């Protein structure tokens, strides 16, 4: 296994956002199996019903949980390889993460939350990224506020900004809009859709909401009962467009 990983690394020079995962993880009777490669930029949606293993998969990729077996490869190094005994901790993976709940640090202002990775995480800001992120997400007016004074939508925007300013090669988003009302969802979907193009960061976006999938997905990785497989997005989108036109949705 490890020999194969090294061979692949030598053969190709993967760009930012590249991720290859071939792994299994078991919790009691539940078993997640993933075997996929992300090579293209843009937004990849991980879709599937609740309990299918979507969050588990993101946690494994981010290093918050450890696979039982397999490997995970990033653009520059191997994050996990059970054969070689490699398991890079989350802080060494250069993968940013937006969680279901904003998880903002209440003892810091919005500005200090946004600057957390550069101040404490040894992830210096790239030139111009502060201005880009703050303007893209409309955060200027919020910078001096404390997290407990923010609405749900504002808090998630700050969480997205904080993750983007960690300057990761890949952004993981775990149902970031699930706790928001429809209006806030629509507003934030607009912000998220612009991220790959404006900031050059590929996104792996978990959702089971079809409206989010339709609005964002350039490709879809389906997770069902612990198994991952690619889905034809266009066909799916056409199907949904047709249903939407027919008034089914």
């Amino acid at each position, binding site marked *: 296994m490890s020999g194969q990983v090294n061979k692949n690394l030598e053969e190709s020079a993967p760009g930012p956002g590249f991720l290859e995962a071939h792994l299994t993880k078991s919790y009691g009777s539940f078993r997640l199996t993933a075997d996929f490669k992300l090579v293209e930029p843009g937004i990849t949606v991980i879709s599937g019903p609740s309990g299918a293993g979507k969050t588990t998969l993101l946690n494994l990729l981010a*290093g918050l949980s450890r696979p039982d077996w397999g490997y995970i490869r990033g653009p520059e190094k191997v994050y996990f390889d059970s054969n070689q005994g490699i398991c890079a901790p989350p802080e060494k993976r250069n993968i940013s993460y937006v969680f279901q709940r904003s998880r903002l*640090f209440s003892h810091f202002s919005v500005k200090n939350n946004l600057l957390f990775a550069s101040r*404490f*995480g040894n*992830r210096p800001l790239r030139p111009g990224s502060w201005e880009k992120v703050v303007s893209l997400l409309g955060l200027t007016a919020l910078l001096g506020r404390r997290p407990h004074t923010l609405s749900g939508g504002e808090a998630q925007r700050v969480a997205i900004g904080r993750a983007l300013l*960690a300057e990761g090669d890949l952004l993981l988003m775990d149902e970031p809009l699930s706790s928001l009302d429809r209006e806030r969802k629509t507003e934030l979907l607009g912000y998220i859709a612009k991220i790959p193009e404006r900031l050059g960061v590929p996104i792996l976006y978990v959702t089971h909401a079809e409206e989010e999938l339709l609005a964002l997905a350039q490709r879809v990785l389906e997770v069902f009962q612990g198994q991952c497989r690619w889905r034809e997005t266009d066909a799916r989108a056409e199907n949904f467009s047709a249903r939407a036109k027919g008034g089914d949705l």
Partner: protein
Amino acid sequence: MTGPILQELFSFPAYLTLKVGLSCLALHLLVTLPLAWWLSGPRSWARRGVSLLVTLPLVFPPIALGFILLTLLGRQGLLGVPLESIFGLRLVFSQAAVVLAAFVAGLPLLARPLEAALKREEIKELAQAARTLGCGPLKAFVTVTLPQVGPVLGSGLLLSLARATGEVGVTLMLGGNIVGRSNTLSLEIYNSVAHGEFDRAMALCLILAVCGLLFYLILEKLTPSGS
């Protein structure tokens, strides 16, 4: 009454009590804080065992606990023999023994609430978020977890300090209540009553009452309102 109070305020027992309290604060930050962090990890037999030992001063009579510590740390004790032969430390009936007694008595008042706070899912989630933002485990603990549990840490330290200043049972056994060496304010109240010096005992009580009131007021400040 003002004269005796002032006199007692600058006496050896008051000095020793202050010294013991401050030493306990330092010990709690150095020992109890990392201990509570370790205890908040996944359940194991080792953690259960240590948790039982930490809780013991709350559920076991102090005088009995003091006696057990005395037999363990005494010159012929299981721990006393190696302590003296290897490090040349003779702990019992010393000021170090008074500090140890106060530390043990206050340990559960800080360790248990802190452990419970560190076990909260939202605290762990915030630490995870810090890890994905580039912090190692220690930095995530210092920059995120510690400020989040700050009020619990503060109130726990204060309660353990209050317990340290009022400790009698374990201190009596381990420290020996030797005048000029191990007689704290609380033990001095006992000594005064034993000698029929009731005015002196009252003056000492008033000093401890003011300390208690101060602890209470600071605790009130540390407790979040409306939660």
